[in-house]
């Protein structure tokens, strides 16, 4: 019986069936559930959370060099982190299959830009495969593994949010165990990236692309990876990925389709032949005109981006509207909704940290990627810069050098990031501060979990992805070992202690020391810490409607009827609001 699987669940199943045995990833939306689902096949597949995507790509590559089939997975921007090994793996090739899953995020649902990672396949000159539903997610992993081994290439397995997080029906198969064809043997010509070897590899890479192109024209069609669906000669559509589903729905009956699963290199003869059979050719793809630009460069007239646009997600209605000018009727109610942006949860340990720093207008906060990015939002409004994972310390470093050059002395910079981000790429930034004498205070917001992506283990949590106990790496000991002193460890929910730690760190910084702060309190959603919720309530007789409690930015507090009111379904009794109330109107209820 078919099962309803998300694309991510289907990729995991595909890895299992394809006999892949080593998998590594760093969590990142929309890719996270791939490794979470692979983890359930413990015993048959090794699955791990790596500290970052570059590590994940290298671990999987090492496994492929050793002859096993391997997969790594990452979100859209994760491939930027992993780009270094990804490119050179393209030159060196593999022994066992090497699949790099890139989960792109059109419309930026959970990402900091909208890059189209198919360009990476072209830049690295490796094969790119794009499934368009869950069944293909599963089936194409096995095809990708075969292509990787047959053509000695990494395969970029490119999916998007709507492929990853949409569920559709999948017919499951059995696992085929995969053993290396030959025993492992050292091969320095192939696996040492010395310049002399790299020079010799480039012609092999170009030859590989020619062979892959021919494969796309022929074998890929036989295997159903590339599909020709001839229905009529008036309109033809070339499409791939989720855009194919939208085009199938939007274009009229009688439209012919060339659906590509192998989108780099493009099958030139197949495209020419298809184009010759239709009067009008469209190319429908999300984001950039990746296929369209190449098809136009082949001298084939086609229409795509000029109508469809190169920004944001598509859907069938948008394709219909932009290609055929057909818009659905809609009705607009005469009341407008207020904005509802995401916010730090009630009881979030990060709230006390940001509230404390927000009280001093001379504090500059360089932030990072995680739940705590939400510290930028009103009313906390406590962040100046946030660019990428691990950038919290180092952007602050650059600002400190610029402020020094400009003679600015009254600003104090706090560079902050979470524990998982610290292990991801914060440690190198911390070394930078010590080595190049940065005038800033690094802060690790240590909540003992990878929060935003939905609670994944990391080197600080004490467990591996597959549930085995692991050493708990200490953030404070790592900072101390790098040369930070004093290192303040503080409960951010205790506002007076938090303020004292910040004040003492500033004093130490001004005396020429390298202080650091670790705010320590587990995310209350982490089950293993058995958080016992309680409740705060407002005494309306004492409330003077000053609205100071609203400044902590807690979703559980609002002003109703002129007085502060705490929503009993949301409050967990963290008392941060009670600590800021000047009139003692908020108190924690006795259980």
């Amino acid at each position, binding site marked *: 019986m078919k099962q309803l699987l998300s694309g991510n669940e289907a990729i995991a199943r595909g890895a299992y069936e394809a006999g892949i045995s080593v998998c590594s990833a760093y969590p990142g939306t929309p890719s996270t559930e791939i490794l979470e689902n692979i983890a359930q096949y413990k015993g048959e597949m090794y699955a791990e959370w790596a500290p970052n995507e570059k590590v994940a790509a290298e671990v999987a590559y090492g496994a492929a060099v050793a002859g096993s089939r391997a997969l790594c997975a990452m979100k859209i921007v994760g491939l930027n982190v992993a780009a270094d090994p990804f490119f050179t793996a393209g030159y060196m090739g593999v022994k066992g299959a090497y699949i790099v899953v890139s989960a792109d995020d059109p419309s930026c649902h959970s990402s900091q830009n909208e890059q189209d990672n198919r360009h990476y396949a072209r830049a690295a000159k490796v094969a790119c495969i794009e499934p368009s539903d869950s069944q293909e997610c599963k089936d194409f992993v096995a095809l990708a593994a075969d292509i990787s081994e047959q053509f000695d290439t990494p395969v970029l397995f490119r999916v998007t949010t709507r492929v990853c997080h949409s*569920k559709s029906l999948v017919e499951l198969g059995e696992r085929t165990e995969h053993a290396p064809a030959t025993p492992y043997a050292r091969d320095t010509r192939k696996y040492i990236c010395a310049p002399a070897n790299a020079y010799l590899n480039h012609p092999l890479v170009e030859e590989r692309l020619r062979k892959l192109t021919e494969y796309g024209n022929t074998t890929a069609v036989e295997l159903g990876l590339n599909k020709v669906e001839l229905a009529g000669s008036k309109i033809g559509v070339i499409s791939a990925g989720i855009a194919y589903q939208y085009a199938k729905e939007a274009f009229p009956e009688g439209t012919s389709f060339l659906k590509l699963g192998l989108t780099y290199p493009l099958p030139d003869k197949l495209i020419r032949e298809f184009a010759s059979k239709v009067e009008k050719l469209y190319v429908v793809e999300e984001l950039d005109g990746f296929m369209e630009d190449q098809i136009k460069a082949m001298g084939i007239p086609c229409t795509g981006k000029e109508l469809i646009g190169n920004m944001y997600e598509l859907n069938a209605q948008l394709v219909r509207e932009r290609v055929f000018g057909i818009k659905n009727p809609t*009705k*607009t109610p005469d009341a407008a*909704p207020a904005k*509802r942006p995401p916010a730090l949860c009630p009881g979030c340990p990060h709230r006390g940290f940001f509230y404390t720093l927000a009280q001093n207008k001379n504090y500059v906060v360089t932030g990072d990627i995680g739940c705590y990015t939400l510290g930028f939002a009103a009313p906390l409004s406590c962040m100046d810069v946030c660019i990428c994972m691990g950038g919290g310390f180092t952007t602050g470093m650059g600002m400190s050098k610029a402020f020094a050059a400009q003679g600015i002395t009254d600003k104090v910079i706090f560079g902050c990031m979470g524990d998982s981000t610290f292990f991801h790429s914060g440690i190198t930034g911390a070394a930078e501060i010590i080595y190049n004498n940065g005038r800033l205070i690094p802060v690790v917001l240590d909540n003992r979990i990878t929060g935003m992506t939905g609670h994944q283990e990391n080197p600080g949590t004490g467990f591996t992805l597959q549930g085995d106990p692991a050493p708990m790496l200490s953030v404070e000991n790592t900072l101390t070992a790098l040369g930070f002193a004093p290192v303040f460890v503080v409960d951010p929910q205790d506002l007076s202690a938090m303020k004292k730690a910040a004040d003492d760190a500033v004093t130490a910084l001004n005396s020429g020391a390298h202080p650091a702060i670790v705010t320590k309190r587990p995310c209350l959603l982490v089950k293993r810490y058995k958080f016992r919720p309680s409740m705060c309530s407002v005494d309306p007789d004492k409330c003077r409607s000053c609205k100071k409690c609203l400044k902590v930015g807690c979703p559980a507090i609002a002003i109703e009827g002129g007085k502060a009111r705490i929503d009993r379904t949301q409050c967990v009794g963290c008392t941060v609001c009670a600590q800021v109330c000047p009139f003692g109107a908020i108190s924690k209820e006795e259980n």
Partner: protein
Amino acid sequence: MSDVKSVILVGVGGQGAILISKIMTSGLIQAGLDVKQSEVHGMAQRGGSVSTQVRWGKKVYGPVFGEGEADILVALEKMEALRYAKFLKPDGVAIINDYQMHSMSTATGAEEYPADPIGAMKKCFSTIVVDAAKIAMDLGNPRCMNVVLFGAMCDSLGADGIDWEKVVAATVPQKAVDINIKAFRAGREAAKA
């Protein structure tokens, strides 16, 4: 014309829209239909506005749809009904939980919570209103609010011949079957009122 039906479930991260879509898709698959469902994870889950789309029919292509394409809109929070109203067909049905949750901007007073979101929806669409929070509370478990709402919507799906009670029982956790069946029945009755 395609036989595909589309539903959009909207609410606030953490309200339990995922369980509703799980019950719905289980029943539809058992009825032999092609089903696709799409949801959003990550950043938006932290108390933000969230939506889930479910589509079914003989053959479904896109897992998501655009404006003016939903047959049914189900709002677990009433202001969210307004936000996603544009997805509803003009002759579509809105099923709204009479339940209000502040957003950060209405809590701080930066914006007003709309005075009568349900009234505004009623002027445009055929609308079913259920106080699912109160019904769930009266049954003794506020957390089964989502199943009350599923009960309220199931007869609007037009998917006849599915024994939804059986599907609910098979989808919710074993120890919570009784309370969820009660919640389902109460919601179904409330929608007929």
